[in-house]
């Protein structure tokens, strides 16, 4: 009789303990998740730097004179290509468009992370430069500028190639390859897991 009682008590208390444990864990989980969302801090410790900017990469495209430098760089590329005697003007424009879009794709949408160590423990390591701009805020002025500039180049290239079919196909494909990653819906998206890590 006594043995049975003890066994019964033991199994009953086990069950009680298990449910208590479960509820306590659930409560802890809720508490910590609430704490996490409430206590997210925005400022970091920047050793050895003179500003409180965590990731300088986010501000580079807003700096003074960089849009002008970029435009001059594209102009320089165009002039260099124009000075090669073999290429006709339509070919040069298509080449400018394609090389510019290729360069933009590589540096803004393929290369991930920062070229220097940041004090935020690698939050930006898996983000491309485009995704890092302005800490992910969409539709800022530099984002708009860098979206519009390949479109302008595309217009110019289409005009100067006289809307020839082959050139059109190449230019359009190149433009799409550099416009689609800029869509806000594709922020952080990696298709087929390419370039994920």
């Amino acid at each position, binding site marked *: 009789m006594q043995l049975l009682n003890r066994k019964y008590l033991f199994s009953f208390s086990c069950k009680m303990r298990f449910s208590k444990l479960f509820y306590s864990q659930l409560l802890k989980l809720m508490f910590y998740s609430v704490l996490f969302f*409430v*206590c997210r*801090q*925005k*400022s*970091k*410790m*920047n*050793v*050895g*730097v*003179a*500003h*409180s900017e965590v990731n*300088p990469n986010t*501000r*580079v495209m807003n*700096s*003074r*004179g*960089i849009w*002008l*430098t970029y435009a*001059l*760089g594209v102009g320089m590329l165009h002039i260099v290509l124009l000075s090669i005697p073999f290429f006709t003007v339509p070919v040069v424009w298509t080449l400018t468009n394609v090389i510019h879009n290729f360069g933009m794709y590589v540096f803004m949408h393929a*290369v*991930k*992370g*920062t*070229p*220097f*160590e940041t004090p935020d423990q690698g939050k930006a*390591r898996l983000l491309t430069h485009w995704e890092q701009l302005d800490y992910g805020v969409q539709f800022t002025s530099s984002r708009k500028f860098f979206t519009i500039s390949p479109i302008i180049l595309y217009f110019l290239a289409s005009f100067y190639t006289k809307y020839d079919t082959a050139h059109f196909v190449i230019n359009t494909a190149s433009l799409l390859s550099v416009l689609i990653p800029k869509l806000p819906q594709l922020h952080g998206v990696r298709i087929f897991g390419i370039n994920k890590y």
Partner: protein
Amino acid sequence: MVHLFMNPFEKRITNSFEEAPMYVAVLTYMGYGIVILFGYFRDFLRAVGFEKCHQAQEREEQKDFVPLYQDFENFYKRNLYTRVRDNWNRPICSLPGPVFDIMERVSDDYNWTFRLTGRTIENVINMGSYNYLGFAENNVDFLKTVAEETRQYGVGVCSTRQELGNLSIHEKLERLVAEFLGVESAMAFGMGFATNSMNIPALVGKGCLILSDELNHTSLILGARLSGATIRVFKHNNMQSLEKMLKETICSGQPRTHRAWKKILIMVEGIYSMEGSLVRLPEILVLKKKYKAYLYLDEAHSIGAVGPTGRGVTEHFGVDPNEVDVLMGTFTKSFGAAGGYIAGKKELVDYLRSHSHSAVYATAMSPPVVEQIIRAIKCIMGVDGTTEGQRRVRQLAENTRYLRSRLKEMGFIIYGNQDSPVVPLLLYLPGKVGAFSRAMLKRKIGVVVVGFPATPITEARARFCVSAAHTREMLDKVLQSLDELGDYIKVKFSRHRSSYRPELYDETDFELDS
């Protein structure tokens, strides 16, 4: 546009951050672009095997594991910093006074490794040390009291202030600091960084608001982060930004509950060490009173360095130091010692004595260091019977004004306030940064240069720290070298150059009465 006629008060409060012409910014980006492209090229060569890789690499057995470090994160260090690495961490073999000796080192493999040649470059003028009043010296008479106190108290305390480490010399120091600053009470700590990072959590906590300047030092940022308060950053020295932020945060309250804030603390520094700008203290005091906030003033660089008698920015602006709620400073820069202090009302400091992390866990200050600070403060105050302290403060002010005005005349772009002993000279282009530092060392002048990412990408600079121990001849030598070098490297970008006319009337150009 340029405000040509400023009244003396405006001159004391304005900081100038002149912008270089646009072509300089374009050239800077092109410079970085070229170096980045070459960096990619060199990385490719290293990966293929044409070029020897000098950096540490993972072993063959570890190649299948997840890499410890990302290659790309060290891109900047590998391809930009290493090329100009010989301008930093130069070994010296004398004390860092106004002149010092540098051990000569050369690199055979483009700065990947260095070797000392055994020679010493002697009497290099030191324009980089924070030696504002020249107390980094080895003068026997001045250090006699330090030696006596060391014999009496020992070298270390090995205990915290709250346990066994509270010596009478500590209390003497704290009374002296309070008297020096003109406040009720003060408390001293062993480390300047720790003064900020350990005491801000004791003053503010969750439910409080911290408004900190954009360019605040790491110690302030760390202290703010450790405290758990909400932090908002306002634009550097910008009173409109601060007022707007005060209005917004007071109206909206705490982040989720929208309750009133428990405390609002505005954190600013006296002199910002990278810009050389002075805080706009009178305006901040007006805002503070209007919105009922507290002010935390970090005078790490400005104590002893500004003000007619070296009492800091409060004296410089003619403001009563009791109006600032928490006065913080360090003994590292102007006093030639180590440590920091917090001063203010007696209730505040008594609270900190029991609640500060430093008081409970950190070792108390070492007695020789304390005595050095005591004798430095006594020297500045004139209590030791000499006018040496006042001479030094005045010499520093003179040197500052002289250096700044001459540099401005020559056409360099200098940031900051006309009275701040920190003089950043803008170089902008990454190539010029390396060239400048090396050329100055060849001329036997040691300078500190800083570039991206420690500064914004277009604003690489050389920073001069004027010292009271610099003589007029040293400054003249520095200025002459800067003049020649500035023309050679072409860093004289200022468009507000005032012409250097030594005489009002040129005697050789008069009309003969005929």
